């Protein structure tokens, strides 16, 4: 997973609510068996519109996506966060994230930042007044600063530590391997098994 500690960047605005993972990464690209190269397919159908913000050069360097509420709703496809990260985003800010999208993002080191509707609205205003407005995100401090707007965001300590240090969760879980095996042996004999 990608390691992150501090992000300073402009923000790319997508104010629509309920942006679903079918839009973020359309199904035709889910047939790929590769893990990389999804950036070019990000918002593939919406990108056909020249006015879509991803086509706007002013946001070319944006590492932060500012999105409407309930971002990432729908399918569990991790291909959606893969595409966002591969395009160049390190963080997404929204007033609400779909559960699976949020977890998938954390698992690859794409930071989901939940902020109040009021703050998200103010950030959209900042971008519309000046698209070059920069935002600073400290993962270590769990804090965000955008000119006079300052706030703290929630991320559990375990996930924060993983993102700060790029730690693979499997290694941590396998430290409990003995307990896992004990649990397996203590299960009911009739619990379904395939082989």
């Amino acid at each position, binding site marked *: 997973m990608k390691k992150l500690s501090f992000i300073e960047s402009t923000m790319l605005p997508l*104010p629509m609510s309920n942006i679903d993972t079918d839009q973020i990464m359309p199904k035709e690209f889910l047939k790929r*068996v590769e893990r990389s190269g999804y950036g070019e397919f990000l918002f593939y159908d919406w990108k056909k519109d020249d006015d879509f913000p991803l086509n706007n050069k002013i946001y070319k360097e944006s590492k932060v996506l500012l999105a409407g509420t309930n971002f990432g709703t729908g399918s569990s496809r991790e291909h959606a966060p893969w595409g966002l990260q591969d395009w160049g985003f390190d963080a997404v800010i929204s007033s*609400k994230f779909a559960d699976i999208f949020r977890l998938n993002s954390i698992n690859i080191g794409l930071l989901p930042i939940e902020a109040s509707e009021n703050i998200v609205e103010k950030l959209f205003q900042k971008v519309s007044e000046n698209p070059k407005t920069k935002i600073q995100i400290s993962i270590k401090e769990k804090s965000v600063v955008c000119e006079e707007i300052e706030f703290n965001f929630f991320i559990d*300590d375990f996930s924060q530590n993983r993102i700060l240090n790029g730690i693979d969760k*499997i290694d941590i879980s396998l430290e409990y391997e003995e307990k896992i095996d004990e649990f397996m042996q203590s299960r*009911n004999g009739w619990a379904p098994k395939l082989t």
Partner: protein
Amino acid sequence: MKPKTLFEKIWDKHLIASIDADTNLLFIDMHLVHEVTSPQAFDSLRIGERTVKYPELTLATVDHGVPTSNRELGIKDPLSKKQIDALENNCKEFGITIFGVNDPRQGIVHVIGPEQGITQPGMTIVCGDSHTATHGAFGAIAFGIGTSEVEHVLATQTLAMNKPKTMKVEVIGEMDETITPKDVILGIIREIGTGGGAGHVIEYCGDAIKKMSMENRMTICNMSIEGGARAGMIAPDEITYEYLKNKNYAPKNEDWDKALDEWKELYSDVGAEYDKVVEMNINNLKPSVSWGTNPSQVIFIDEAVPNPDSFQNKSDKEAAERALEYMDLKPGQKFNEISLDRVFIGSCTNGRLEDLRAAAKVIEGKKVHENINAMVVPGSTLVKKQAEDEGLDKIFTNAGFDWREAGCSMCLGMNPDILQPGERCASTSNRNYEGRQGVGGRTHLVSPQMAAAAAINGYFVDIRESK
């Protein structure tokens, strides 16, 4: 002892360790795998020189990319073929059981688990697919995961996760035969919104739920994710046990009695506390149709397409404007004024035997409207066979429906079954997102009965009146 919810009882029983204050290690009883969200997980296992911890607790099948016609000709789409071959090879390499494309047990992953008796009360079940919530109908904790977590479960048979909150949805009122479980769940999503259940596991309660068959309960739990909840569940009861008894992987003989003793403890204790409680009165419910591009944008068949100005919330208003434009609808339009092009009956939401029976009952002796291209895609190869044994296939084909092989098909259009740009479809699936069933396609979510009636008329009709 503090009263516990159904969710808490199962959760507590599967806790292996607390990694820190918020992060728990949860044992996973069954991992279901399909071709689309697994190849990168297996690759990553190989790169990390890891193996599958308990292959006997993993079941794979192919469903998303499989063709639903002319299977004897093989899989034409080279990308889908590569993906399906990859799953076959991964299963062989890691010793995982797979119900492959020509296996009589093949089907949509959420249809075959219950059908085989692999889905049982009290289990933890995950799959790289958001509709895993379906299995919660048996009183299991079941939810969708992404590919990184698929790899994690393969390697450890656990998930390291935060404990979700609980939400009780109390369904009040009586069902009648014109109101289907699809109308109930669409009604719930209309009420709570597509993000209403975020962070929560829903438990559906109430007399109406208790009276539902297992297949109907699966339709309800299936669409929990469309209400934002990763999991939905229903306490097991006699209907659950009756369904499971004698299924292939269900416990047998004295094991059955032991299992029953445990399953009978799986209910929310009196006084158990939920983080959120929602009441849903179904007495005023009517057959429902989605008009927009998210599953909360739903109206009753006798309502008019809403005016975006009627939404108080700015983002809902903007979403409605965008949806109407995409769907080529105008405020005030009635559904009997809107012609359809396609009808799709199938999916993990409504592709089981009872769904097909309900649709067949509506179309028996009638013909599909000349402007409509209609198809039925059974949820599994076994559902297909059972339907054929009952003669349902003849009812469908005599009416002019295509009768297909099992798979996800046009629910998400990853196989050749897709809408053409501008085509309008009555669909028994679960998502009406832009382009979901094909780029530029327009999806209206309905029950199997409503889809069947629409196929005959060429537009939506109120099934209460056409009876």
